[in-house]
């Protein structure tokens, strides 16, 4: 069943067409890799899907619902999660707080919060803390749960971002170059973690990644972009043999 459907998505910046009429489908529990050279339009496509950029044309549907006009936070509440190429963590907060915020934001009403806070009832519930700790346990962060993320290394922060993105059980996870800045061992561990979370939570994953070993380890299917267009699509090995992909990565002979 198609979970996320993108049709004819186009985004330009001035005269530069970053994404040109892209179609993309993601099924429940499926993992799709989005690869391509720098400047191919992958992150712009992510930004459009997640509501951080407004596309010039095209539609985006989540579970059959048109989400094209919704803001980022509404898309997150509808079941989308995201990690970022450049870390977007909250430096003053602990690892546990990151997950608590994500969990609270997924279900709390606007007005109730102020009164609850003023009455001293703004602390996370026992159930919320149990959920958070179970995710921290699963991703191996329980030992640093109370540490401010400013004190953690890049690799750990990437896992914090991932845990924060999945704690509210999103149906779609957009992972933007999660291995950026990580060494080979950390990348392999992250790939394993992503795959296990995907299987356990049956979520669809859209993975933008330059590390092809990681792509191969995580995804079921690969979509290749170049100059804003989809140039190939299929299994990892099929796609890597496609002439269009070789041209995109290696240039024309």
């Amino acid at each position, binding site marked *: 069943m198609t979970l996320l459907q993108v049709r004819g998505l186009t985004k330009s910046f001035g005269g530069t067409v970053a994404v040109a009429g892209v179609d993309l489908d993601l099924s429940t529990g499926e993992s799709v890799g989005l690869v391509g050279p720098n400047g191919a339009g992958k992150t712009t496509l992510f930004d459009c899907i*997640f509501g*951080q950029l407004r596309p010039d044309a095209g539609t985006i549907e989540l579970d059959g619902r048109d989400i094209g006009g919704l*803001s*980022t*936070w509404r898309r*997150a*509440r509808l079941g989308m*999660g*995201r990690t*970022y190429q*450049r870390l*977007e*963590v*909250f*430096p*003053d*907060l602990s690892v546990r*707080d*990151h997950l*608590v*915020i*994500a969990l*609270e*934001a*997924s279900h*709390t009403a*606007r007005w109730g*919060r*102020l009164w*609850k*806070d*003023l*009455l*001293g*009832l*703004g*602390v996370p519930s026992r159930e919320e803390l149990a959920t958070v700790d179970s995710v921290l346990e699963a991703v191996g962060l329980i030992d640093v749960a109370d540490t*401010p993320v*400013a*004190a953690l290394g890049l690799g750990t922060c990437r896992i914090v*971002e991932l845990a*924060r*993105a999945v704690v*509210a059980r999103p149906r779609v996870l957009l992972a933007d170059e999660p291995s950026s800045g990580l060494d080979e061992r950390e990348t392999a561990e992250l790939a394993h973690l992503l795959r296990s979370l995907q299987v356990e939570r049956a979520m669809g994953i859209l993975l933008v990644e330059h590390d092809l070993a990681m792509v191969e380890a995580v995804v079921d299917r690969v979509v290749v972009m170049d100059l804003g267009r989809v140039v190939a699509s299929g299994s990892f090995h099929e796609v890597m043999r496609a002439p269009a992909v070789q041209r995109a990565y290696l240039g024309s002979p």
Partner: protein
Amino acid sequence: MEQLLGFAVPGIPYGCAYAVFAVGLVLTYQTTGVFNFGYGAQAYASAFVFAWLVDDHAWPTWAAFVCAVAILGPVLGLLFDRLLFRRIPSANSTAKIVTGLSLLVGIPALLPVVFGNGNLVGVPSVVFNPGTVYFHLGADVPVNGTYLSAVLFTVAMLVVVVLLLRATHLGLEMRAAAESSRLLELEGVDAPRVTATAWAVSGLMAGIAGVLLAPTEVTVQAQDYVTLMVAAIAAAACAALRSMPVAALFGVLIGVVSLTAQGYLPTSSFWYSAVLPAFPFIVLVGALLFVPGLRRLGQATDPLSSVDPPLPPPAARARGREIDRIVRTGFWALLFAFVVSMLTWMPPAWETVLNQGMAYSVIFLSVTFLTGTAGQLSLAQATLAGIAAFTAGQLAIHLGLDFLAGAVLGALAASLVAGLLAVASLRLRGLGLALMTLAAALLFDVAVFPAQAVSGGTGGFALESHWLPLGLLSANGHAYFVLAFLVLAVCVGGVRLVQRGTIGRFLTAMRGSELGAAGVGVDLAWQRVLAFVLSGALAGLGGTLLAIQQTVIAPGEFNYQLSLAFVVIVVTTGVGTVEGAIQAGIGLVVLEQLLQYAPGRLQGLAFVVFALGALTYAAHPEGIVELEKRRWTERAERVLSRRHRAPAPAVTGRS
């Protein structure tokens, strides 16, 4: 046509003044990446020194010009660069704004301390004689030396600066350094030298602008330069802080249109008294709302900004359990001693001072909540305090409402205005938001607060004793202390509860990363509006408390300059904690009271002290008081850990 020219020509010096300042602001922004709030203070410093040398020490005009402009201008620019802005990480836009504000507040307060108050009247013109009419436009529109100086220097400066930036290699390097000085260094360019040159040129321009403008006013006053700079910001904003010719054009237009409209509008009309003085600020609001380039103003563009080191952790985290217990015990003991002292032996003069400190503390809590917790910078907190005070006063006058009930309604009114301001600024971030709040503060200063219906005129109005129960207005007794103490306690408790609750976590997340917070489902727009509304309520309560303490509500008590000073003061003590707000409130009034005993020229020293403190914001965003608390806590922790450690075995030699 003659009439139109007659009204428009007197607007030229003002327009040129806006243009020169606007070009200077754009130049600094384009070449250093810093929107320099201190630019007006730089210009004022040169004008002050120029007038001081000529009037008080009878220096020749040319020698004073060389000293005040050619030397002092670039030197100030170089000092700003070397000591302040170079040390601020490129991504830390809040630190750049706070540093600029500190200079804007600190320099005008420092100059009289250093040079004395001086006789700064009738400053001479550098080139043309201001009183001489050189020719006529049309039949009878005289063009005097002031107009000629303004036009000549504006055109000359614009041409020189545009040529420097667009036609020279140094200009290219300056523009590159503003984008990323680290990338420029990777190209083999001495980026610090390039940036220093840009600051020196910018300082020279500020100096020229300052000295040129001095003869257009009767006396050299800092307030004129600051107000003029804010009007110039409108012109610079219309050019999206990019094009100097466009900024200059809008500067001239603002000046000429203002004076032309002044000529045509009836002096008794609302348009003349309220809208016209606010015209530059209305233009600024319009530019901020409709010029797309300003929405992300002041945000880092440096691709290497991620290599900046993280900010230091808050001071309270250094506290172990034992120290924490000692600090808490000490706090309650101190609080008990304070209350007992205020109710028993405290001399009335000091009780008044400390009461005022508590009122300020409530206002400062609004800065703590908005900036420290939510990461939003407002330069209109004194205005919000004033809105509440005037609302309560007018409700008492017209409806006979008890002033305390009016204070609650006043706080609601301040919340409403703060909320509307937040809604209007939803697309703005960082510097754009700061400018929007500053424009709002100025609009209220010139168009709302002085209105007869609001304040009864610039002198304001006195509170009447029957408006308040329990003898709150009486100097005898402790009723006011009890009220202020209770309000402060409730506000502190409320802020702490919200900080520790869901909203506090959401706001802290938003402060850390807006993208990250929105990405997990936090509604940023709602959180920002809520932060402004709560902050407005706090400022409003503080404003009414201050009005009761001072027994008078006057526009001068709530002007934009105080809003700027409030941010600087709270940042100095610690914007991240409620203790910081209380220390700022009490510290300000105690320092001002102590300075009453010092010579007259030192009266402004309190603002200098706080401005110096705020200059350390980039290095110590937790505030210097918080920093010292952390250092002392760490020392105490070390002493305690040594005491608790088991005696080491005897050491017989080094291994």
